[in-house]
């Protein structure tokens, strides 16, 4: 984890420091295995064979075991330090979802009635986390998301992804007529504002804010050109209607749940792909995906490279994207407020890699105020301004890579696509 002079906390984006929990865990597991094998050589009956050698070995063993134990502790400390204070605390509470994932027999003790109650209580827990203070809210929300599918007994959970939780929620709510979305359709296509290329992260965030605040669900696509090469920037808004019932807005909560369960099934996701197709983006054209909240999740899904497009960068604000396997070389800037629970709906913590930068800030709030304030796009615009002035190595590098994408490109046009259903 690297600090900064401002209120920002960031990790990733610095090629000198890379850490993946799986690699640290792998090293730790091999040490534990060596400890176990060493201990296995000093069982009482072992001393019947080569007793003299075993006595010498036994004399060395305590120090060896102690040094290995220290090394194992160092692995745990390294993993925690790298992956922020939030991850450190999250790991402490992560035991619950991991325990249920690893011991499915625990579910047998839950009767059907209790399963329903547990599911409802967990959902209530996710909602309640918005009133917890600081990063505790995010950490608890992540844990509830991981635990939910196991508690409802409907879907097995890996313990580190939102997909199972969202699928379980879909299964429970769809029979009640909730979350059943209609067909998405474009209602208008019109010229957008005349822009020059964004010169700052704040500039990108401000354009995204304008898109998010349009009256209709709008996707803005800017086109830039350098000779024959084209570069597109796709701005995707966040969840606009927060009622649980499906609405006429494809960027509503039902789409948000569908998006986490199966991105292709979400109306909002379909709208973005439709807009990109109408814009005539070709597989050889470069695209920079930008999204807020639900829109950030869509942008990340398209940036995985699983579609026919050629992503060159991803910028998200307040979006759950930790669940995606993004290309190693892709510069990623993921901005998350520590007290915003929405990014936690990924059920995981963003990885620490060379090109994936995560920047956090805690939004100051009054006592009893809902954490939904921390999810507000205006707060993210403010954080983006701080990112522009941050001198941390990883922040500087990824910021320059993303803004540098526009070098020598000239603005051609921008188009607004409006959708309904």
């Amino acid at each position, binding site marked *: 984890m690297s600090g900064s002079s401002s209120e920002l906390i960031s990790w990733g984006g610095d090629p*000198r*420091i*890379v*850490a*993946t929990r*799986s*690699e*640290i865990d*792998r*090293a*730790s597991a*091999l*040490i534990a*295995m*060596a400890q176990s*094998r*060493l201990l296995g*050589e000093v069982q009482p009956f072992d001393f019947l*064979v*080569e007793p*003299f*050698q*075993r006595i*010498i*070995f036994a004399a*060395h063993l305590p120090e*060896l075991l102690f*040094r*290995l134990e*220290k*090394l194992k502790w*160092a*692995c745990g400390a*390294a993993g925690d*330090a*790298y992956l922020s204070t939030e991850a450190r605390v999250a790991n402490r509470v992560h035991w619950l979802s991991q325990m249920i994932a690893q011991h499915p027999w625990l579910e047998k003790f839950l009767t059907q009635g209790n399963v329903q109650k547990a599911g409802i209580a967990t959902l209530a827990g996710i909602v309640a986390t918005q009133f917890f203070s600081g990063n505790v809210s995010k950490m608890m929300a992540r844990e509830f998301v991981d635990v939910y599918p196991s508690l409802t007994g409907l879907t097995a959970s890996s313990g580190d992804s939102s997909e199972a939780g969202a699928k379980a929620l879909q299964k429970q709510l769809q029979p009640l007529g909730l979350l059943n979305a209609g067909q998405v359709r474009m209602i208008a296509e019109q010229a957008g504002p005349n822009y020059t290329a964004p010169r700052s992260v704040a500039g990108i965030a401000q354009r995204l804010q304008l898109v998010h605040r349009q009256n209709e669900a709008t996707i803005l696509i800017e086109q830039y050109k350098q000779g024959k090469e084209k570069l597109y920037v796709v701005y995707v808004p966040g969840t606009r209607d927060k009622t649980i019932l499906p609405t006429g807005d494809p960027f509503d909560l039902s789409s948000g749940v569908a998006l986490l369960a199966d991105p292709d099934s979400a109306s909002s996701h379909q709208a973005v792909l439709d807009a990109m197709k109408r814009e005539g983006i070709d597989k050889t054209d470069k695209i920079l995906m930008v999204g807020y909240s639900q829109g950030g999740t869509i942008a990340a899904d398209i940036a995985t490279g699983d579609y026919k497009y050629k992503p060159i960068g991803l910028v998200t604000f307040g979006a759950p994207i930790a669940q995606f396997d993004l290309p190693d070389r892709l510069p990623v800037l993921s901005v998350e407020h520590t007290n915003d629970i929405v990014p936690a709906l990924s059920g995981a913590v963003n990885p620490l890699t060379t090109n994936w930068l995560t920047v956090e800030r805690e939004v100051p709030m009054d006592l009893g105020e809902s954490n939904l304030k921390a999810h507000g796009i205006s707060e993210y615009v403010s954080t983006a301004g701080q990112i522009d002035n941050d001198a941390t190595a990883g922040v500087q590098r990824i910021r320059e890579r993303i803004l540098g994408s526009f070098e020598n490109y000239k603005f051609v046009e921008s188009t607004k696509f409006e959708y309904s259903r």
Partner: protein
Amino acid sequence: MHVLAITIQEIAVGLGGARPDQTLWRGDASRAFENNLESIIAELINLGQQLAGQS
């Protein structure tokens, strides 16, 4: 060679597998970890050789 000495050599080799994959974990902590690990592996190898030399 003695059975115990061979086993210790095997454990030392197995422990070598814990060297961090630089593409997945690198930085100061990774280097410090690897240095400590190498020191323990060397000690195990020495111990194995010492035990093998005992008759």
